[in-house]
């Protein structure tokens, strides 16, 4: 299935992309998709903290991703 991935902050600079679609197996979890992204982008893998949100919510690592879901990757936030 194809999943929409979004990147923010420093991760957008690393990937040079705001978003992309990637093909993954059915039933993939947040944890597995994070490993997948780390394999594609070693510079993200090197970061000490990688935050993942599913449909705009911080999800648990074992949450299963559905095809219509939007998964966002970003570093620790720094607003305020």
């Amino acid at each position: 299935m194809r999943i929409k991935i979004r990147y923010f902050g420093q991760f957008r600079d690393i990937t040079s992309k705001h978003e992309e679609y990637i093909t993954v197996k059915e039933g993939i979890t947040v944890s597995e998709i994070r490993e997948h992204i780390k394999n594609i982008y070693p510079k993200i893998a090197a970061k000490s903290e990688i935050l993942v949100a599913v449909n705009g919510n911080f999800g648990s690592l074992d949450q299963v991703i559905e095809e219509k879901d939007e998964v966002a990757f970003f570093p620790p936030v720094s607003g305020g």
Partner: protein
Amino acid sequence: MIKLQKEEIDILDILERIKNPESGGIVTFLGTVRENSKDHVVSKMEIEVYEDMALRQLEAIRSEAKEKFDVHEINIVHRYGELNVQDNIVFIAVASRHRKEAFDACIFVINELKKRVPIWKKEITPEGNFWVDEKNE
């Protein structure tokens, strides 16, 4: 009111709107762009936001603060885009019957915002551009 916007924050308008007959005080926090960050001079700042998620997180923080503290109303406005030194970044206003609850709620909101609202700051400096906290890695 919860808002993410590029334009300047109309602080007086927010203060007028949040005033109500029940509240005896309004506590505010205004975050602005500093010209010095650690060891370098900042000329500008770029702020990026994951809008849908940030709005949801801000609504959640406001609800939590209203449950936790005895306050009447909380308004939060955060800017994004390109800002200059001294520009306003974030404005929080809390109205309550007495001052202590408003101060406590205001501190809670800015602390939670800094922890979990998906907003990122990039400092534009003469030595290059750095995402805030990037230099700590």
